[in-house]
Every structure is written in structure tokens, then in C-alpha cells.
């Protein structure tokens, strides 16, 4: 994956508004074909970074590269290849959904047939001739994503596209993005504070906190602190701990008669179980705690407080 070229790259990107430093030495690299989840709590600097990527804020030259070129020098060429959604749908509510997508279609200078094709992709063809003011938030998000897709861009930059949606709306947008990535080959850069959503759809993740990127890489390569934890409740904690130590497993006596240890696979769990049973340890329960991205995120951000 990393052999692929970087579509988005920032080099020691720092940015301040007045006296407040928003971004500190951000080095981002988003590879072609990935779904890159950009995670951070509110105020971490996600939207500012996206605005810099889109050249809405100027962070200076040789800091932001899109498709290998400096965005400040090649603004129009870069924007032609990007579809974007920033914070909330920016739609003219007195116009219909189709007219709103047509505005984007004309701006990008693509064929008018793309309007209906795009509306079909985002599932809004049926409602295209209704005024936007009659739409639900989910429908507006879809039209806004349609505006981002109308010129068939290589890269989608989406800033919290599921904000304010109900669970079914979130699921629909997630499925749409996954299909755009898998079936249409789009590279997607998506910011969110909804960790569960990022975990479900992204191939890569970047974690930003107080303007600094704390982690960046493939989701599966998250730091070792994120390994799953196995709790085993046994009748003789000391002896079980000694048995596991002989097998190279470091188990911590947590509370009561429970031992906790990191595990990497189901096979390792089976082996641990076998060692203990064969040495005559009675096992009352085995509980696997699967660390999700949320715990990793909290762990990463707490470490940097």
C-alpha cells in the first residue's frame, strides 16, 4: 500500500490564527486508493487542516502538496481533481436538489448528463426536483456529497459528512463511501470525531490532538498498547501466573482471582487455555476485551496531555 503515491502530503505544516497556534508540524501522507480517517476531538484542528488542503486558508508555499504539486501554486488544477464537503452542506435552499448539483456540474465544466448520474449514485434521483428546503438533513448531506462527486474526482475530502445524521443515515453514507472507494477507486480523506465510523470504513487513520498528529498509519498497525486483553478467572492465581510465565506470557493479577494479559490471536488464547488446563488449573471464565479505536484514541490523546 505504501508503495502507492501520496495524493495528499503536508510537510511540517504549522498554522496560526492570530496568537493561537492551530496546527503544529503536521506531516500527513494519504496514499492513493485509501480511505484515510482523520480523527480528533472538536477543536483539534481537523477543519482547519481541511481548509488549508482546499486552499481556503493559505499556509504558505511548499507546505501542502496535492497530487504531488504545491497547492498554492496549482490551486485550480488541484481543485479540479477534488470533491469536497466542508462541515455542513452548503446548498441553496430555494433551488431544487438537481439545480444545486447542476451548479457544481457547471463549475467543474463537465457534461450535464453527470447531474442525473450523480444523483443516482447518491440515491437522490427520485427527489431531485424538490426544493432543498423540503429535504431532511440526510438528504441534504447526500446532495452535498453529490456535488462533490459530480466531476468524478480522484480524491474526496470530506469534513464530518455524517454530522447530525441518525444511525441509518450514518450507515447509508458509510456504505456509499465504501462503495465509492471499492467500486470507483476513489481516495477518500474523511475527518470525524465519530471513532466507530472511522473504524468501520477506513484503511488508514491519523489522530490529531491540539494541532499535532499523534499517530498516522494503517489501522491494523496501531500501537501495541491497542492489543486485545484477555481476562482469565482461575482458582489459583499465583500458580497460573507462574505457569504462564514459563510459557513466556506476562499476566498481571488484576483483582480477585483474575489474571489479565495481552493477546494477539485466537490461537494464542487457545494455547494459554491449554497450558493452564493441562497443569491442573481450574478456569472459571475467559473474557476477551477487544480494544477498539476509541480506546486507542483516548490512550493516545491522554498520553499527550
Amino acid at each position: 500500500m505504501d508503495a502507492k503515491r501520496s495524493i495528499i502530503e503536508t510537510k511540517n505544516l504549522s498554522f496560526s490564527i492570530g496568537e493561537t497556534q492551530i496546527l503544529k508540524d503536521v506531516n500527513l501522507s494519504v496514499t492513493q486508493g485509501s480511505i484515510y480517517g482523520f480523527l480528533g476531538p472538536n477543536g483539534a484542528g481537523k477543519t482547519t487542516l481541511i481548509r488549508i488542503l482546499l486552499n481556503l486558508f493559505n499556509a504558505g508555499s511548499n507546505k501542502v502538496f496535492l497530487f504531488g504539486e504545491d497547492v498554492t501554486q496549482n490551486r485550480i488544477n488541484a481543485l479540479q481533481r477534488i470533491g469536497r464537503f466542508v462541515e455542513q452542506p452548503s446548498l441553496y435552499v430555494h433551488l431544487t436538489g438537481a439545480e444545486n448539483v447542476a451548479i457544481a456540474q457547471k463549475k467543474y465544466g463537465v457534461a450535464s448528463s453527470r447531474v442525473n448520474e450523480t444523483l443516482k449514485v447518491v440515491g437522490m434521483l427520485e427527489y431531485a426536483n424538490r426544493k432543498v428546503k423540503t429535504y431532511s438533513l440526510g438528504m441534504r448531506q447526500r446532495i452535498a456529497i453529490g456535488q462533490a462527486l459530480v466531476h468524478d474526482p480522484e480524491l474526496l475530502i470530506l469534513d464530518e459528512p455524517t454530522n447530525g445524521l441518525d444511525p441509518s443515515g450514518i450507515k447509508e453514507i458509510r456504505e456509499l463511501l465504501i462503495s465509492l472507494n471499492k467500486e470507483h477507486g476513489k481516495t477518500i480523506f474523511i475527518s470525524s470525531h465519530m471513532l466507530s465510523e472511522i473504524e468501520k470504513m477506513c484503511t488508514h487513520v491519523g489522530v490529531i490532538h491540539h494541532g499535532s498528529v499523534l499517530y498516522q498509519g494503517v489501522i491494523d498497525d496501531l500501537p501495541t498498547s491497542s492489543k486485545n486483553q484477555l481476562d482469565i478467572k482461575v482458582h489459583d492465581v499465583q500458580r497460573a501466573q507462574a505457569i504462564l510465565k514459563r510459557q513466556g506470557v506476562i499476566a498481571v493479577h488484576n483483582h480477585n482471582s483474575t489474571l489479565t494479559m495481552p493477546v494477539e490471536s485466537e490461537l494464542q488464547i487457545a494455547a494459554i487455555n491449554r497450558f493452564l488446563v493441562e497443569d491442573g488449573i481450574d478456569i472459571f471464565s475467559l473474557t476477551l476485551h477487544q480494544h477498539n479505536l476509541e480506546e486507542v484514541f483516548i490512550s493516545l490523546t491522554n498520553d499527550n496531555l
Partner: protein
Amino acid sequence: MNMIKELYNTVKIEMLKYKRTYALALAVLAPLFISSLFTIIYFCKAEKLVKAGVNGLNGVLDGSIGSTSTLLFTFFIILLTVLIHQVEHKAHALKDLFSYPVSYFSTYSSKWIVSFMLLGLSILLYVAFSLFGVWILTIKHPTLFWFDSARVLFFIKQVGVVTIASLLLMGIQFLIALKWSNVIVPFGVGIVGFISAVILMQGWKYVHFHPYALSALSYHRTVGLSKVCLSQYLTFSSIGFIVLFIIGYFMWSKRRIV
């Protein structure tokens, strides 16, 4: 895509945005309202308002352009510029506008072009509705109103003069409404500008440099009430507008979109 083609395309998009908007409604209804008002007054009260032997046409057209230039046109421009920019502000669309692959010059100029198209539409309708009203009056009261092509041409010239004299005012209001999404600021500045102009027109010797006084002063000059040469108003307004257009472009291209 060359610049002219891009600008043409951007103007077409801007025109699409103003479908079914208050800005378009204002551009159509304001001239209809003013012209109808004077037509109705003279339609009902012609015998009292027009002296025998005098062409009532002068009264209707003078009353209409007089009140328009001294009062209504200023408020029309304040409201029009606010409504034009509110279409963008209400949609929170500036961030989208700046992230399309279109040059800053095209996006900026297209806003001006569409504003002028709306203003031009309004002025044309104002002249058309006024002349239509006059035509009705000549039918209803043939002894009091009769067609006078010289007077009609003078009226059209007066409308043109007042419009050019208002360019500077339009430039100021356009940029304020573009900068502030809050409608209070452009309205506040507009009203303060108008009131100060009315006060200063009572005798301040440099009032002809007051942007909000220019339309009224230029109208008065056309009927011979002002000592300052008409071309001075028009030149000052036109040059001021060009300077504002250039300043506005730099404001637009350097704008940080939050």
C-alpha cells in the same frame, strides 16, 4: 478554459442561483410599485394635480424620478445588495465558492455582473412601467396628458444620470454586504449614510463628495437646482466605483474563508 469563457460560465451559474429569490423579486416589484403609485395617484386625482393647459406628463415623471433619486433609490440599492449577498451567506456557500476550480477574478466579477444585471433589469422596468403608466393616463385624461417625446427622452436621461451617480453608493454597499453576513451592518451603514447625506445637503459645501448624496444632487442638477457641474458627480461616482471594485477584488482574493 480561457478567462472569458470561464467568466461567461460563472455568470450563467450566478444567474441560476438568483431564480426564485427576493433579490429578483425586488428588482421586478420595486419599479412596478413606484411607477404604479404615481400612475394611480394621477389616474384618480388628475384634475386636482394638473393645471389646465400644462402637460401632466411633467408632473408624473418629475414626481417619480424626484422621489426615486432623493429617497427610494438609495434604499433600493441597500436592500438589493444585501439580498444579492444573502443568497450566498444563507447557504454558507462561500467556502464552496472558493473551493471550486475557478479563478477568484471570475467568481468576484460574476457577482458584480449579476448585480448590474439585476439593477439594469430594474431600471429598464422602471422606465417601461413609467411610460406604460403615462400611456394609460393619456387615454384616461387626454386633455391633461399628451405624449411629448422630448420630455420622455429627458426622463430617460435623468434615470441614466441618477443610476451612474449611484455607482459609488452601490460599490460601498456591495462590499459591506459581501464582507458581513449579518444584515444589520449593511443596513446600518446605509441608513447612517443616507441620513448624513440628507443633513449635509442642507448646506455643506463639499456634499458633492458624499456618496449617498450623489443621486439626489445629480437629479437636482438635471432640473437646474445645483451649482456643481453634472459631469463632476458622474465622474466622481464612476472613479470611486472603479477604485472600490479593485479594492473589493483584493479583499475577495485574500479572504480567509471561515
